[in-house]
Structures are given as structure tokens and as C-alpha cells.
């Protein structure tokens, strides 16, 4: 059957944009990208976002620049997902705050991770960190007896990692990372690593090479999709210290980069304000995609057809769309399950001398040493980040003044106290690896959004595998601060790991949503095959971190980018 389009890509974030772009390079395909958001991808739009952010106060909030978008009404984003479960659900007599997420009765934790439903997706507000998975991350079950294995290994993905690093424009120091826990690198990064900040250098002097509870640590420059020179038409980083929620100059990669390239191609159409509601299937093929155009007043339903459909709506909306499509591609009962995040926490301290944070990117360096080891049979590994953003999420600089004022400090004592406290701020954060669990899931809530579409409903438990790692992360961070001679402030700062009120652990989300449509060789136990094609439908493909069977400790973007490029090549071969 002949259609107007060869491929429909649902979602214009990094996975969808890269997949569409790669396809456009491999063949003269007519591609339609459907996107729920409706923002522009121009420089002018970036300036509007920046102005909006200035008026928000909380610059650490990933949603701050974007919450005036009209799309937020019709394609809501989980703007309050970081609240504790009780605050999201509402307390007796107190209605919940305006929320997108909903929860099942037996959930243990809130699902705190958020994402942007925008043209360009969540890359508008990511930090740009691009560490690769380790070889062992693909074989968690066989090596440690926990979680799952991937159907592919590091060797198979390695060339695609190289391509992804060039597409995203990753700066990094090849020699520092080549061979990390066996993760060889066959190509150099396209750019050298971001130079260390003054703060990093002072910390490195104190801890590099130190023995930390039996592990020798090495301060390493984190590979980042951030220009360390003019690259791909974008400028070198100017150190705005604003990577999340918005790089004002696009020195940091975001998916609008590839969307602008696609816009040059007359065969490719980006249709915005299009919220997909259903994919129809017939005889094992996806045949028609239904969506609502919310910009039409009143909103209007449409449908389009193509010979291939690619779902790239991130790990919450993708399974939602499948569930709304009469449980499409779900003969395994794995759609929406195995939901994962990088559960994260941070410890703060005051360094003995001024570090002058907030100059340069929000983080340049990290410690990779705790990511792998035999301990993964019992608990997860973690990646550590050395912050350059003061006390990070624990407290904005404005809180320093609040505290001083509460202590009654006014007048001439104030400037010196502010200077002393803020310039010595440092944080260490650690991101742990969640296991894919059948019962950690997102499904459809009976409650609906503004378009009458079911909101996502979660059952979520971070699990003891992660909880043990969070405790270890605290011990390691405490030891590192001891070696630095940094002083951990007294309670209530920093936030304790154990919450006496909720009886749960305090933790933060890294907003790295993974799982929900995992890949595998066994159609009875996974949603897509090793190429990203749904087991149940020969022309439905899923790209993005939803296909990850393990979460590892790496920020997911470079891995999902590598997989999206690889899936595009597979789609091209099929077509």
C-alpha cells in the first residue's frame, strides 16, 4: 500500500530526532515526526526561555524556562514529580497539588523523574553528561546473578557509541576513559575534554589517588555533549553554570540541533501540537497513527498512515501509547514494566578554602571507580559527580542568605558571611543502578488529562539493591570530605539519608527514565528485539531509553543515541 509517508516517528526528542536524521541520510524517506509540544527551535525561542527562567527564581528547576508554554495544558509534564509521595497524593483533607502523575495503592515510593514534552524533548534541560555503559552493564544477570542481560554486548554497541559521540558532539579525554573497566574506545572523542574548573583542581589536589575505604580514586573529566571548541555550527562553552535547565548559547547539544538539520529536507515534516492517542494494527503490522491536534480550537482528531512507525516518546509516554492502543506489542506483558531511574543522593560540605563555584559548567569531573565490582551481586554500583554548583539540590545560594537572616545577621557582617559560605560550597553526588523489576511499572490511570487521555499511574519501589548502594555512597562521600578537610554542616543540613517522618530514604531522581519497553531475544519476556523492533509487530520500532534492560550507572543519553542510530540502520535494511 502506498502512503504519503514512509516513516512516522512519534516524538522529537534526542531518540526520535537522531533516528529520523539517520534514516534521512540512509535513504530518500518521507518522514513525518509527530510531536506533542509546540515550541520553536530557533535562537529567539531560546531567548524567550531564558527570560522566562529569570523570572522563576528557582534556576535549578528543569521546568522553569518552559512552564509558560501552552503545550503544558494539553501535553502536561510532571512538574511536581520531585515531591514526596504524600505531597503528590494529597493528605487527608488536603487535595494533591496539580499533578500529572498518579499512583497505585501498593506503590512504595513516588516516581520522581520528570521529562519535557517539547519539540527537542528533555535535552533542553539535560546536563550533557555522556559516560558510556561498561561491558559488565550488559551482562548483569550472567556476571552477578541480578537483574537482566542485554541481548547485545559492549562490543556490538561500541562503533555506534563512537557515532553517537560525534552526532552529539561529546568532549572528553580519550586516554582517561579508554579501557575503563574493560570499556575500550575505538575512536577519539570529537573534542578534547572540558578543562577543569579552579574548584575541580583544588579538589583533585586533595583526593586524586587517595585510598577511599579500600578503593583508589581517580578524578576524571566527565565526557559531556558540550563543545570545548566551535563544533557543528555551535559555539564553545562559555561556562554559564546553567546547563540545567537551559544552555543559553547551545554550546551543549540538544535535539533541536538535528531537528534544524531535518528542517532543511523537504521530505521531512515536523508536525507539532500532535498528541498521539493510538496506533492501530492489522495482521501484525502497525497501520495507522491517531493523534489530537490541540492547537485546533476545539482540538481535532486526525490519523496518518505509513509503512513504518517509530515510537520515540520516552519511557513514560511510549508505554502509555501502547497501552492506549489496545495493549499493542504487549504479548509478553512487559510493556510499562521494568521501570527504572538512577536513584541519586548528594552530600554537601564546606571546603577549607574558597572554591568559587558557579563558574564554568555545573559539573566537569567525577569518580568512575565505584561503578563496578563483585559487590554488584549484593548492591548497585554508583557514579560520583563532583559538583561546581555549590550545594546543588540541597540548597540554592539564596538559602544561605535566608539562614543568615534567620540567625539575625544583618548589616556589615552580612557580605563577608555570604562570601565565605557560598564560595566554599561543594557537593558530591552519587547515582545508583536500579534493577529491572516486573512490579515497577507505569500503566494507565483512570484519571484523565485535559485532552481526556489517561494520566500515567505508577507502582514504584527503588528496592534494597539501591538502598544499600545509597548507604555506601554516603560513607564514601563522608570519607572523601574527610580527606579534603571539608566540613559537613550540622543538621538540618545536609538532608539525612533516612527520613524519620516517612520512614523511607530521602533520595533524589536523576530523571533518567529507563525500562518499560525492554529489549531481549525472548519474545515472551521482552517488548522489542535486539534491533529495537517490537516482537509482535513487524513494522513498529521503539527507540529511546525505554528499551534498556539494565540501567547501569551511566547517564543514559549517549547509550540511547547509539541504539537509536543502530535501530535506524536496521529500519533502513528492512525497508
Amino acid at each position, binding site marked *: 500500500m502506498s502512503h504519503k509517508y514512509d516513516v512516522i516517528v512519534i516524538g522529537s526528542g534526542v531518540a526520535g530526532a537522531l533516528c529520523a536524521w539517520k534514516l534521512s541520510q540512509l535513504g530518500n524517506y518521507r518522514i513525518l515526526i509527530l510531536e506533542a509540544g509546540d515550541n520553536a527551535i530557533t535562537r529567539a525561542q531560546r531567548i524567550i526561555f*531564558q527570560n522566562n*527562567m*529569570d*523570572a*522563576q*527564581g*528557582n*534556576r535549578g528547576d528543569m521546568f522553569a524556562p518552559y512552564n509558560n508554554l501552552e503545550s503544558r495544558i494539553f501535553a502536561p509534564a510532571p512538574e511536581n514529580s520531585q515531591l514526596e509521595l504524600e505531597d503528590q497524593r494529597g493528605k487527608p483533607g488536603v487535595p494533591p497539588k496539580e499533578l500529572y502523575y498518579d499512583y497505585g495503592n501498593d506503590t512504595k515510593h513516588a516516581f520522581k523523574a520528570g521529562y519535557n514534552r517539547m519539540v527537542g524533548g528533555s535535552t533542553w534541560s539535560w546536563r550533557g553528561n555522556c559516560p558510556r555503559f561498561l561491558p559488565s552493564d550488559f551482562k548483569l544477570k550472567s556476571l552477578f546473578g541480578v537483574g537482566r542481560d542485554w541481548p547485545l554486548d559492549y562490543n556490538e554497541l561500541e562503533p555506534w557509541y563512537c557515532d553517537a559521540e560525534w552526532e552529539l558532539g561529546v568532549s572528553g579525554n580519550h586516554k582517561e576513559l579508554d579501557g575503563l573497566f574493560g570499556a575500550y574506545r575505538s575512536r577519539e572523542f570529537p573534542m578534547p575534554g572540558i*578543562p*577543569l*574548573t*579552579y574548584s575541580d*583542581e583544588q579538589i583533585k589536589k586533595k583526593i586524586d589517588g587517595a585510598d577511599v575505604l579500600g578503593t583508589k580514586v581517580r578524578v576524571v573529566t566527565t565526557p559531556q555533549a558540550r563543545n*570545548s*571548541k566551535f563544533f557543528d555550527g555551535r559555539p*564553545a*562553552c*562559555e*561556562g*554559564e*553554570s*546553567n546547563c540545567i535547565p*537551559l544552555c*543559553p548559547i547551545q554550546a551543549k547539544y540538544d535535539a533541536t540541533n538535528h531537528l534544524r538539520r531535518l528542517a532543511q529536507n523537504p521530505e521531512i515534516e515536523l508536525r507539532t501540537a500532535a498528541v498521539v492517542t493510538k496506533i492501530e494494527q492489522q495482521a501484525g503490522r502497525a497501520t495507522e497513527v491517531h493523534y489530537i491536534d490541540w492547537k485546533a480550537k476545539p482540538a481535532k482528531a486526525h490519523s496518518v498512515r505509513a509503512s513504518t512507525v517509530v515510537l520515540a516518546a520516552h519511557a513514560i509516554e511510549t508505554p502509555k501509547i501502547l497501552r492506549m492502543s489496545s495493549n499493542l506489542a504487549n504479548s509478553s506483558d512487559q510493556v510499562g514494566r521494568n521501570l527504572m531511574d538512577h536513584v541519586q543522593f548528594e552530600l554537601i560540605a564546606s571546603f577549607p578554602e574558597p572554591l*568559587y*563555584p*558557579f*563558574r*564554568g*559548567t555545573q559539573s566537569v569531573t567525577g569518580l568512575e571507580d565505584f561503578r563496578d565490582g563483585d559487590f554488584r551481586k549484593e548492591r548497585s554500583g554508583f557514579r560520583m559527580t563532583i559538583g*561546581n554548583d555549590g550545594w546543588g539540590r540541597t540548597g540554592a*545560594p*539564596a538559602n544561605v*542568605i*535566608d539562614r543568615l*537572616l534567620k540567625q539575625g545577621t*544583618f*548589616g*556589615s*557582617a*552580612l*557580605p563577608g558571611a*555570604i*562570601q565565605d559560605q*557560598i*564560595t566554599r560550597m561543594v557537593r558530591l553526588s552519587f547515582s545508583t543502578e536500579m534493577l529491572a523489576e516486573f512490579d515497577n511499572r507505569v500503566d494507565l490511570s483512570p484519571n484523565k488529562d485535559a485532552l481526556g487521555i489517561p494520566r500515567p499511574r505508577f507502582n514504584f519501589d527503588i528496592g534494597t539493591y539501591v538502598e544499600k548502594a545509597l548507604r555506601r555512597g554516603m560513607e564514601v562521600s563522608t570519607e572523601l570530605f574527610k580527606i579534603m578537610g571539608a566540613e559537613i554542616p550540622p543538621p538540618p543540613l545536609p538532608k539525612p539519608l533516612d527520613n524519620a517522618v516517612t520512614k523511607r530514604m530521602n533520595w533524589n531522581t536523576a530523571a533518567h527514565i529507563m525500562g518499560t519497553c525492554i529489549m531481549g531475544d525472548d519474545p515472551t519476556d521482552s517488548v522489542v528485539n535486539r534491533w529495537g523492533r517490537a516482537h509482535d509487530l513487524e513494522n513498529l520500532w521503539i527507540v529511546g531509553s525505554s528499551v534498556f534492560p539494565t540501567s547501569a550507572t551511566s547517564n543514559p543519553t549517549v547509550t540511547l543515541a547509539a541504539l537509536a542510530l543502530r535501530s535506524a540502520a536496521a529500519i533502513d535494511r528492512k525497508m
Partner: protein
Amino acid sequence: MNKRTVFMELSALLTGVYKIIDPTDKQLNESTADEYLRRLTGEFPELLPKLLDAYERLASAVPKPDIDDALLTKVQAEPEFAEPDVAFVAKQIVNIWYFSQFNTTTGTTVDGGLYERGLVWPLIKAHPIGYSNQPFGYWTKKP
């Protein structure tokens, strides 16, 4: 004393940043002061004038007292300052000058409108977050 001068003097007194009213800088700071005064008055229409009146009573003495911690102590000893709501507004004057934002009594953070002019940035030797205007790699050096 006009309202703007009263506000600027009280701001210098509370923040400890006396250059707000330094003769060489005062004129440059007037537009900022006007905007902050407007925004704070909008949020605290009764409490802010109360605080300003208390300050003006002391500052109008002849000879005019120096703007320093001794005068601050006197202001803090005024009965208005003992009122928690008024003391709260005094804190918001400090907040708005340092970070161009302030809190309402309900806990909402309100924009002061002049983010880049926050006094905190030169103090901590950083640029306003999101406004580097410096070349690649500037961060490697001690400021």
C-alpha cells in the same frame, strides 16, 4: 527625605552593602531601588511603609546619623522591628538586593525583576548564573 532615599538608606543599612548609597554609585542604583521599592510595596503595602517610617524617624535626626551598624542597632530596637511581620519584610529587602528575588508570607518566591543586578554575584566572584559573557575556559583561573 523622599521615599526612594529612605528605601535606599535602609537597604544599605540592612544589607551591609553601603555602596548602594555611595555618592558615586547612588544615582546608578536609583532605578534598581525604584523597581524593588515598587515590587515590595505591591506585596507588602502596609508593612513596608511602617518599616520605612521607623527608619526615617531615626535617620531624620540632626545631625544626620551615619549609616552603619550603630544605626542598624537603633532601627532594630524600634517597636516596629519587634513585629514579626515587619521584621520579615526587612529580610525581604535584603533578599531582593542580593538575589533580586524575595519571599511572600505564604512562602512563594517572587522575582525582583533585575536578576543580573543581584549584589551576590560580585561578592562571590561569579557571574549571574546564565550570563557568563566570558570566553571558553575562564573558569580554570582563580577569580
